[in-house]
């Protein structure tokens, strides 16, 4: 039976889709059978992050409304054998799917895949309700900005109220230099408020724009630090105990090590 993980944030543009693409690709690269589900109906873009846009025939609304069979809507990734995508509909809106339909869909996907990664839309309305309806676990993304952290906190509260307890946190777009200068919230500041477990930290890196535009998940790039930060997250999802990596800025992660009792 597969595990359903929803990737959510509250605030838009903090890196949910990028993270979903990379986590999914990273898991598939390690041999897992993975399906990425884009629930951002009306603002479809997970397909682009994977370079699969031109293969879409059916979408999630076609499946839930019975226009096609699940099999027909699933798109196989062009690079990774285990990776599949269930695309969002672009021409409908979030009310085209109900939480009950989402739950049933997740249960179907669970039979066939080891990991079902759900890319959630921004906001706290029906799109969010749909995305979390069938989830077993949640990953919350934030950036080191006060407003993003506030929205993440709101989302964590809503997740807890929906029995999705102990979500894991990813802090995206951190700039170590700015943190050191005191111009950006540190990981410690963020954890102090959100009080959840840290799953990983992803640095700000313009390389992500290039790789996303090309539809090549950067997690597959073995040479980059950025790819490494996603690979570490993937390993932690698989249960490995991977220490937080230093972002080349000495002492930057000293505080985290202390907090998590890693030396």
């Amino acid at each position, binding site marked *: 039976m597969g595990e359903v993980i929803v990737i959510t944030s509250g605030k838009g543009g903090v890196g949910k889709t990028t993270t979903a693409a990379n986590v999914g690709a990273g898991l598939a690269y390690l041999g897992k059978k993975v399906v990425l589900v884009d629930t951002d109906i009306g603002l479809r873009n997970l397909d682009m992050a994977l370079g699969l846009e031109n293969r879409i025939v059916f979408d999630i609304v076609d499946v839930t409304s019975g226009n096609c069979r699940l099999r027909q809507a699933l798109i196989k990734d062009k690079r990774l054998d285990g990776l599949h995508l269930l695309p969002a509909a672009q021409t409908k809106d979030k009310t085209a799917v109900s939480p009950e339909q989402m739950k049933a869909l997740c249960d179907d996907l669970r039979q066939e895949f080891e990991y079902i990664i759900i890319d959630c839309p921004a906001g706290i309305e029906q799109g969010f309700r749909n995305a979390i309806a069938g989830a077993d676990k949640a990953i919350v993304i934030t950036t080191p900005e006060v407003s993003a952290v*506030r*929205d993440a*906190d*709101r989302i*964590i*509260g*809503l997740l*807890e109220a929906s029995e999705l307890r102990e979500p894991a946190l990813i802090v995206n777009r951190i700039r170590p230099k700015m943190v050191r200068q005191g111009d950006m919230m540190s990981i410690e500041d963020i954890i*102090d*408020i959100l*009080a959840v477990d840290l799953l990983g930290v992803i640095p700000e890196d313009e390389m992500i724009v290039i790789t996303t535009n090309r539809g090549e998940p950067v997690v597959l790039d073995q040479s980059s630090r950025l790819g490494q930060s996603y690979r570490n997250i993937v390993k932690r999802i698989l249960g490995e105990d991977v220490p937080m990596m230093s972002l080349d800025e000495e002492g930057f992660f000293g505080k985290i090590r202390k907090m998590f009792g890693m030396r």
Partner: protein
Amino acid sequence: MAISKESNNSPLPKHTAVDQEDLVDDNTILVQRTLRSGQTISYHGNVVVLGDVNPGAEIAATGNIIVMGALRGVVHAGAGGDENAIVLAFKLQPTQLRISDHITRPPDNEAIDTAHPEMARIKDGVVTIEAFQTPPERQAKP
């Protein structure tokens, strides 16, 4: 449901059996979790939080508010007009703090790092914040 008793000069619970009964009488709710952004509590009586009150969360109580953690949201103690109501927190860093009809906020551009539990109450007509002292010490003062 009664609003906090007027007769109680020191609104904090004292450690005698009689006064503990007073507190029960005053209606106290125990919140055993962190209040996150967007979550609110409105209560006729005292509110005790075993956790944090995050920015974007709000508590309004006719009685006292005690936070056994970091208070970073908006709180209103004595919401029914009780000028004796207090707010007590391990880390008192509210976005806004109200007691009765007094509304206060922390000074701009001033990062407060509170190392000790602190208590806010109305003293001589203004909301003042002081280090929380144990009841015997505090009561010894005039």
